[in-house]
């Protein structure tokens, strides 16, 4: 059994670490610091923590102002409120101005669980991806989230970090070398490629095991940086494996699947399928029940792989 850890915990712990190294880092939260895990930073560096109350638009605007005065602000709340309620603030006060704000949104996707559809953000990657100049990162596990938070901090410009609530399997080794804008090869194969992000990377690994039982060896790519997307890795996978499936805990419209299909459509069309939320809202349930309910499982991914391989013929 793999070790299970949440990416939001990686975020909270890494913030404290970064806070010790870099006095310019400040953290803002909108009354959710216990859940987003920014409370560790708040305790360690109370003067550099700004509690904004339940006011997400002001959260983003204030973060922009702090950045304009030389700070490196991490603005946190749930993905629903961090992107839906604040689109204009992120678009105009942060991205249009090219301001160095890091938006670290937790509780993304349906793995929020019981809180239900109102809190299950499945459009955030799409919303952030269409903003010019925005970098979008979706870490797959605790290790990658730790590295991604550090990379975001070192990067000059607006970044959207998508983090999860639940404990997911730890996939990468401690010495994992995260590279912003680069896909990571999780395992190699030539029958087809699954390009996944977030919680679905683990599912893609499981799918690869299921398929291996049928003698099908697939490549699994972890596409943590959805923007700028690693075109080279996508085209290479298309050319070398001839079929692609994407897997994401997000609406199939506008997210990773769309980003990959754009590259394939323009560069090297191959049989292709998107595993994700099929353009419907979430609902209450346990995270595992919801992943099952919305078809975000190893079996769904494996079935999609079989279909695209079939279409290669």
């Amino acid at each position, binding site marked *: 059994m793999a070790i299970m850890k949440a990416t939001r915990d990686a975020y909270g712990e890494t913030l404290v670490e970064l806070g010790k190294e870099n006095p310019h880092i400040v953290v803002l939260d909108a009354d959710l610091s216990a859940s987003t895990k920014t409370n560790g930073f708040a305790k360690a560096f109370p003067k550099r923590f700004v509690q904004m109350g339940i006011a997400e638009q002001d959260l983003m605007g204030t973060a922009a102002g702090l950045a304009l005065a030389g700070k490196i602000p991490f603005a946190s709340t749930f993905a629903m409120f961090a992107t839906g309620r604040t689109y*204009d603030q992120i678009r105009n006060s942060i991205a249009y101005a090219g301001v160095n704000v890091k938006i670290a949104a937790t509780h993304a996707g349906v793995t929020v669980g019981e809180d239900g559809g109102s809190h299950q953000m499945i459009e955030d990657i799409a919303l952030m991806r269409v903003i010019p100049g925005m970098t979008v990162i979706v870490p797959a596990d605790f290790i990658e989230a730790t590295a991604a938070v550090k990379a975001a901090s070192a990067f000059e410009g607006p970044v959207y970090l998508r983090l999860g609530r639940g404990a997911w399997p730890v996939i990468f080794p401690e010495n994992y070398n995260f590279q912003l804008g680069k896909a990571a090869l999780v395992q190699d194969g030539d029958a087809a490629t699954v390009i996944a992000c977030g919680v679905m990377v683990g599912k893609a690994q499981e799918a690869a095991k299921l398929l291996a039982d049928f003698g099908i060896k697939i490549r699994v790519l972890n596409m943590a940086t959805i923007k700028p997307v690693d075109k080279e890795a996508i085209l290479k996978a298309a050319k070398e494996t001839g079929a692609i499936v994407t897997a994401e805990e997000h609406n199939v419209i506008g997210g990773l699947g769309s980003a990959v299909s754009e590259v394939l459509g323009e560069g090297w069309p191959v049989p292709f399928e998107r595993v994700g939320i099929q353009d419907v809202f979430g609902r209450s349930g346990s995270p595992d029940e919801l992943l099952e309910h919305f078809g975000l499982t190893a079996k769904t991914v494996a079935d999609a792989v079989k279909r695209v391989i079939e279409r290669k013929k």
Partner: protein
Amino acid sequence: MAGCKQHTPEALAEKAKVLRKHVISMLGEAGSGHPGGSLSAADIMAVLYWHELRLDVETPHWPGRDRFVLSKGHAAPILYACLAEKGYFPVEDLASLRKIDSHLQGHPDMRQTPGVEASTGSLGQGLSIANGMALAGKMDNADYRVYALLGDGELQEGMVWEAAMTSAHYSLDNLAAIVDYNRLQIDGTVQDVMGLKGVAERFRSFGWAVVEIDGHDITQILAALDLARGTKGRPTAVVAHTVKGKGVSFMEDQVGWHGQAPNAEQVQVALGELAGGKE
């Protein structure tokens, strides 16, 4: 470099007149833009840029500078007029407002225009940005001050009141918000569009120090900013009662001149009035 506090009120009034002329000329050249809310803010802007703000034009990003955020971004022409007159870019650039190859965008773009501190235009966001700057100043024990100019119609944006809570909650006495209360917005009077009675009381109830002034009386503007600078422990709101289109008779208090540029003939009449010292 400290603000040029040697200017007399008369000199500041003259400066405001120069700014107004630029606004008219720019908008005439551009063929579109927002004269009403630019002219209403001219006296406030003249006092800010030629008396209050501690700036170094030679070092625009000097960390110790005072910051000005034009939350009512559609009044960009008056800001550009100030920045050009201060020397951030050549005055001749003003004629390029809103043109395809210009650094003077329809609404302020800090990435294109030297001296612009924040990109604004989508109303309601400037006070939050100013708060962030003021918070950073507090964290760094810096002594710079932050000023935001808001429109009265803009106060209908809920985000302004989120920000107003934050300014007071964090005792941002290094911040002043000036409301250009010109009583008009695009669809009519502010009162008719979405009633906004008691703006001063609203800010006061949020924990702000508040001063109400005639936004065209230089002496009152100077006094209000002095008061703001001397206020400790809370932010100051200056509710400046103004006349939209101030200084150009046919634009004054006219809803239609919110977002319409004068034609060539109207430009001449307006410039004539401003040159003649007509109030």
